[in-house]
């Protein structure tokens, strides 16, 4: 989130199945979705806790309520008088309502906001639904239906990229299969490509099974600010980012007939806010009112090159079990073309999946890593964020972030931490890395909850397989600076020790911890510590597992800089910026590898590595010229990022080589 905004968590959600709810009025649908959300809150929530409500509904006129204001929410759920308003924003109405609620919470205006989206389409006749064909400008709007926005783009996409009717049909086949496992989906089951291709043309080139049916649906979520999240949730789902983008008003003015520029803009904003890239996404729920939408949106969201959306669905990667499941919740069947509820369905289903509450959905959904997330046309939403990532002036800052557990290490945090390190390593915009902890703790070691599990009656033992080497950080070809802001022990100490330079806050306390837990010296500390502080001191710290403070750490050479607690991150960041400003990235990458590698090499061998490196660099080293020129001209150097093919000196053999 942008600085000044607080984090927003989803603590409850509920929805109705998408269906023709002829027996239910819009008000009952809203009530039921609301109750389901309220009942879904881990620790419970009193109705009076809700500060405000946002209602999302695109076309209340379909059920005869042309002016459906916020009172349709507050006055329906037994909270007349509660602040409430309605959001309408075309197809993304439901997501926009969530975004509006999130903005209200993030800004601090409200602590708890209820967002309900619904669409009651089946109270209208088909003729009534088609009424939009007779609205607006007599020449430029006449004849338009929801389909006529998308069918011409389908044709343009097919014409420009060779996307085939079969590929469109594959979207329907896949999503029907997914829907068969979701009790909330309106349609589901096995259909074939041929079924789709032989279904009647509705709006050439789109056929009946390319289209969603008209539906009734409602969904609700409860959003709360981070300060109050503990009151409601054991396992909150954090909202990482959301974005909104628009295109031209008239479709004839669109820059592109083969993409949704609005989606591209919204996605870019959401990714930026979340600090993630499309490659970080592991599952997607997107608006797929017609099959072509999924194909074009998968391109616009960054999951396929322009024109390759058809090939993406054909590859099977977007099916459940594939690399990037799209719409694991079901078929285009259940989503009406404009949607209060349907877009929220994405949020809700996602919430359910994350919380393991929805058996069949969860069973079907692909295994998700902790860094998983879901993007839709206007939102990106990732679960528990255990490591925060920010880039400023060439410095990537990784903040271990689990304040309620004092940033204790977990397998999930580990996965996120090393994934983000990899990302920083690969990003040319990053030239130095700072590692720190949120709040007053750096990382006190493995989470005690996890330790209890490890040691319990059916103790699973420490899980070692399937994890990365704790020395993976040594693979990063960029200097790493630790800003040790507080407690640093056990596996947390290991992470600090494999950084290159350590800044410690006065008051920070350290321990190796292993000997007091019945463990050996873990993760190479028995090799590393003697090389850093000498054999006797290393043995002292490892054998006694005593606590030592920041002053002692600096005195013994375990850290080089002592700072006041409020200054430690600033000092580490300034140092890292200085590296970015003055030092050749290639030199730093090389030196980092030389020093860490030479720790296990003899002098002759180390010299050979150096000579070998020099010889390689003699051939082509623009940094040398720039380094000298900038020195002579008394200016800051302008070093280019190292070429991708740059060969760095070898690391010690215990580090898994890349």
């Amino acid at each position, binding site marked *: 989130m942008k600085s000044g905004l607080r984090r927003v968590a989803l603590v409850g959600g509920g929805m109705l199945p998408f269906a023709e709810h002829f027996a239910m009025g819009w008000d009952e649908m809203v009530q039921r979705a609301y109750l389901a959300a309220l009942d879904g809150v881990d620790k419970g929530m009193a109705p009076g806790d809700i500060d405000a409500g946002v209602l999302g509904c695109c076309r209340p006129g379909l059920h005869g309520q042309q002016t459906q204001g916020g009172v349709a929410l507050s006055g329906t759920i037994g909270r007349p008088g509660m602040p409430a308003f309605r959001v309408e924003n075309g197809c993304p109405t439901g997501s926009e309502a969530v975004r509006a609620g999130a903005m209200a919470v993030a800004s601090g205006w409200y602590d708890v906001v209820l967002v309900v989206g619904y669409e009651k389409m089946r109270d209208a006749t088909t*003729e009534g639904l*088609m*009424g939009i*064909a*007779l*609205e*607006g*400008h*007599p*020449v*430029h709007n*006449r*004849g*338009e*239906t929801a*389909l*006529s926005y998308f*069918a*011409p*783009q*389908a*044709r*343009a996409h097919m*014409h420009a990229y060779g996307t085939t009717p079969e590929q469109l049909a594959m979207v329907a086949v896949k999503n029907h299969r997914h829907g068969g496992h979701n009790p909330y989906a309106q349609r589901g089951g096995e259909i074939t490509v041929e079924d789709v291709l032989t279904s*009647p*043309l*509705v*709006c*050439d*080139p*789109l056929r009946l099974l390319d289209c969603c049916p008209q539906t009734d649906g409602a969904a609700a979520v409860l959003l709360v600010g981070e300060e109050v999240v503990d009151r409601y949730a054991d396992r909150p789902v954090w909202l990482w980012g959301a974005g909104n983008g628009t295109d*031209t*008003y*008239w*479709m*004839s*003015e669109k820059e592109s*007939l083969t993409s949704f520029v609005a989606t591209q803009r919204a996605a870019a904003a959401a990714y930026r806010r979340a600090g993630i890239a499309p490659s970080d996404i592991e599952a997607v729920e997107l608006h797929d009112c017609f099959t072509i939408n999924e194909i074009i949106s998968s391109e616009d969201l960054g999951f396929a090159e322009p024109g390759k959306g058809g090939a993406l669905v054909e590859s099977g990667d977007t099916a459940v079990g594939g690399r990037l499941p799209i719409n694991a919740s079901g078929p285009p069947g259940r989503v009406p073309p404009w949607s209060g509820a349907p877009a929220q369905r994405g949020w809700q289903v996602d919430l359910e999946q994350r919380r393991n509450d929805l058996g069949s959905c969860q069973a079907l959904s692909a295994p998700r890593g902790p860094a998983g997330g879901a993007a839709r046309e206007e939102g990106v939403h990732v679960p528990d964020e255990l490591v925060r990532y920010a880039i400023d002036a060439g410095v990537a800052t990784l903040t271990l972030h689990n304040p309620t557990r004092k940033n204790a290490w977990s397998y999930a945090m580990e996965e996120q931490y090393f994934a983000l390190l990899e990302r920083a390593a690969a990003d040319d915009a990053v030239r130095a890395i700072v590692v720190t902890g949120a709040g007053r703790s750096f990382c006190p070691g493995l989470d005690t909850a996890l330790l209890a599990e490890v040691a319990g009656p059916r103790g699973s033992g420490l899980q070692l397989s399937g994890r990365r080497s704790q020395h993976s950080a040594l693979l990063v070809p960029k200097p790493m600076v630790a800003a040790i802001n507080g407690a640093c022990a056990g596996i947390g100490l290991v992470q600090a020790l494999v950084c290159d330079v350590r800044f410690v806050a006065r008051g920070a306390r350290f321990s190796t911890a292993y000997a007091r837990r019945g463990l050996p010296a873990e993760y190479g500390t028995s090799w590393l510590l003697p090389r850093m502080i000498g054999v006797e001191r290393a043995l002292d710290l490892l054998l006694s597992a005593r606590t030592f403070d920041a002053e002692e750490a600096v005195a013994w050479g375990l850290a080089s800089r002592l700072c006041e607690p409020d200054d430690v991150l600033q000092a580490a960041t300034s140092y890292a910026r200085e590296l970015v400003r003055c030092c050749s990235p290639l030199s730093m990458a090389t030196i980092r590898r030389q020093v860490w590698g030479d720790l296990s090499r003899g002098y002759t061998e180390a010299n050979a590595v150096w000579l070998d490196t020099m010889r390689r660099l003699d051939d082509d080293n623009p940094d040398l010229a720039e380094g000298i020129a900038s020195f002579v001209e008394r200016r800051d150097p302008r070093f280019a990022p190292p070429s991708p093919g740059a060969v760095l000196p070898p690391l010690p053999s215990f580090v898994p080589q890349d």
Partner: protein
Amino acid sequence: VTTATSKISGHGVALGRLRGPTGCRPGPDEDDLTMAVEAAQWALHRAGSPAIERIVAAVPRTAVNDDAVLVAALRLLDDVPVLRIDRALDGVELAGGLGGHTLVLSSQAAGAAAVVLADGGYAEISKVRRAVGGAAIADGSRDPRFARHAGMRALARELGGAAPTGDGLTALAEVLDRGDSGTVTEGTESAVVAVDVSVCGPIPPGPSRSKWEAAAHEPSAAEDRGAGGSRPRGATGVDPDGALLWRERRELLVPQGARCDACGAVNVPPAGGVLCRRCGHRRLELVDLPRRGTVATFCVSTSLPRALPGPLALIYADLQDGTRWKAMGSGIRTGDLSIGDPVELVLRRLGLDDGAPIYGLAFRRPLA
């Protein structure tokens, strides 16, 4: 018998877009007015778009505002008067007497014709003659009840022309299409008018009757339902008395856009434009746009409200100046069209509301 001479500097015909058992007939989105406008556009085109001083029209009334629609759709000056007459060839005589530039129009159920009478031109009206049979009917020597058109045929013979077969202006245009000379007649049992016309110069190109006949197509089931070109009943969503129709009257009838002085974007539609929709600049100039373009993309809907019988194509086309224009298709169905095909904007009857037609532009394939 009277005589008047004048020159023809342009002529044109237009036929309904559907094939019927007895020739072409209008589609449900066509009527006498839309066909007259198309014929007039060809006549004006051949004449080099002279400054027309009046319209003389033998065109059945289609709407209370049809004079205004006619003048606006043809991009004539707002104060050009429309003189309504019964027989088109009377208009030829009238125009000769009044002098200056006159557009004479006629339209019947099957098609329409138009000529521009002006100085110069490629054909000459040498004589206009009349025969009146009222006395014979009055004295009982002819009984129109028993000898259908016998009197008319006799009157035509007196004038040295073939018996009238319908609209005299269409017959005149056919003579011109042949590059020929002849006498064309038009009339009733009691009165016939004959015009002697002869070609005196090269005729500028334009579609002849046979081209229109070749372009006509078999009606779809929905098109067939409305006999004689009347659309199925049902509101089109446009209130004929509403302000919207009045406010957007011009941009419905002629391809126009508002070109931005700063970024050059052509805002379509231009109404509501005090700001450029693309860049926000405040100076816009209303410009006429070309009618022809190529298809950028399109769809063909079959699932539509009753007032809009399918199949209905919605077409995005890039006009010759690069402006993208979206409109319904006229007579275009699945399989008829591809991206890159040429199309042109023509006036169509978009629908009927409370019996009043709403006119606006639609795309069709250009005549070959």
